[in-house]
């Protein structure tokens, strides 16, 4: 067998404020988009279950936080994003959106929060440079300032007990009433520079917290001592895949339309006069009708579905090219079988066949969501 040699390159990786803590906890650190990040702390599967059943904390400080302010901030984001920030009627509300290129492909997917006087975007680490370049380019005709917040750390605390445990530690009354997909600045609650969003990437309840880098270690240690499990990015991937959430570079990229990546719901078509970038192209795609869709697959045999494996509508290849491809695949710790997201022809039936090495294995076609709040869904 051949083992991936993550540490052999020895290139200078970026580090979060928690790198020494990850090492102390026995984290297996790997190159993750140029960052030295923990893949797991012993068992990825145990960490996965900790989030489904109790609470886990992830260091996600590699994510890029960008603040947008200025008198044109709203107009700028209404052009930049396929979803409409006009939906953010009160400070703290969050919106998931694609940022499209002129060809209607996805430059990145992101979360935008309405702040009292500005907007805060959280974008992917792997797309940081092209995102910032694109935003700066598009900002030229607007009165806006785009500032990356590289001074912040970011943690995701996720799981059925996550909010209760964080609330006990922070003792901020307002957190008890924080609604799903809302965020709150804790600056006026004795936590200057802290921002807490009731968001996540696991299918469980919980928070994503942005806080000053020099305070993150103490807070991390408090969480661990209160029974929150340290979790690596390996578990983050199996959790998001079970939850049917997209990963940039897998389910969508610069050449993939949001309409075939389960992101049509994030495109705000109205008002019709809002000319966001990429609109005309995806509007034409919508009118013409898309040919593929993103579905979930559940492997009925033993084995593991992986990104790139081809999907067939029949057990034998009839040569008509009626084929799809797996965009993300893994072993699901919650369901104890392999699951995947796959882009397939609209005509796909209840079952399909996946090429795994020399075999064609049968898989069930389901909605692209496998687990929510600890329970299996859509997998009958």
């Amino acid at each position: 067998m051949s083992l991936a040699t993550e540490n052999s390159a020895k290139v200078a990786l970026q580090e979060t404020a928690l790198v020494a803590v990850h090492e102390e906890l026995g984290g297996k650190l790997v190159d993750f988009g140029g960052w030295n990040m923990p893949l797991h702390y012993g068992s990825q599967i145990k960490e996965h279950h900790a989030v489904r059943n109790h609470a886990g904390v992830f260091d996600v400080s590699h994510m890029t936080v960008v603040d947008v302010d200025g008198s044109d901030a709203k107009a700028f984001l209404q052009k930049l994003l396929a979803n409409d920030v006009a939906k953010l009627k009160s400070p703290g509300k969050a919106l998931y959106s694609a940022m499209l290129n002129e060809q209607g492909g996805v430059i990145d997917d992101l979360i935008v929060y309405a702040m009292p006087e500005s907007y805060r975007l959280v974008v992917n680490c792997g797309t940081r440079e092209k995102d910032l370049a694109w935003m700066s380019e598009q900002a030229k005709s607007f009165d806006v300032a785009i500032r990356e917040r590289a001074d912040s750390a970011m943690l995701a605390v996720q799981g059925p007990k996550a909010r209760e445990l964080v609330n006990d530690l922070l003792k901020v009354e307002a957190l008890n009433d924080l609604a799903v997909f809302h965020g709150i600045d804790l600056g006026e609650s004795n936590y200057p520079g802290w921002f807490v969003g009731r968001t996540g990437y696991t299918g469980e309840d919980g928070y994503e917290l942005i806080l000053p880098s020099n305070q993150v270690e103490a807070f991390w240690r408090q969480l661990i001592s209160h029974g929150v499990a340290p979790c690596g990015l390996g578990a983050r991937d199996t959790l998001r895949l079970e939850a049917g959430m997209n990963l940039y570079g897998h389910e969508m990229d610069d050449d993939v339309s949001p309409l075939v990546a389960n992101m049509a719901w994030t495109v705000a078509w109205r008002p019709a006069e809002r000319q966001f970038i990429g609109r005309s192209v995806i509007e034409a795609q919508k009118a013409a009708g898309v040919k593929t869709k993103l579905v979930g697959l559940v492997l009925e045999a033993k084995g593991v579905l992986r990104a790139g494996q081809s999907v067939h509508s029949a057990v034998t290849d009839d040569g008509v090219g009626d084929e799809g491809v797996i965009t993300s695949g893994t072993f699901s710790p919650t369901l104890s079988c392999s699951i995947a997201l796959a882009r397939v022809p609209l005509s796909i039936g209840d079952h399909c066949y996946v090429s795994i090495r020399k075999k064609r294995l049968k898989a069930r076609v389901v909605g692209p969501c496998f687990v929510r709040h600890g329970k299996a869904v859509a997998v009958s």
Partner: protein
Amino acid sequence: MAELRSELKYLSSHEWARVEADGTVSVGITDHAQEALGDVVFVEVPDLGAEVNVGEEAGVVESVKAASDIFSPISGKVVAVNEVLEDEPETVNSSPYDDGWFFRVQPSDLAELDGAMDQAAYQALVEDDD
């Protein structure tokens, strides 16, 4: 530090071989390999009675992270496969040298193992890796 055993022969591709009392050869993956792979979730071993060849692909081990081919350290006929791994692949993580063996071969030429590494040589390779 990963566990190593002196009675085993090793391949640079992280499989081990053990000559059993009955002259058959058991095959598995090393403690270092299971640690590097992370949680093992699927193992594919050769069919009973199949012929395997030294240095050639003889199975697959999949962790949550990735799939890796298993190479046979010896040629011969497969006389036993570890059926426990079908339902409890995590045994490879918990007991890589004992309960987590993959398959057993009736070797056609035991001398093939002379080409494999001993504990010291494999240890040096693993330390080089780290």
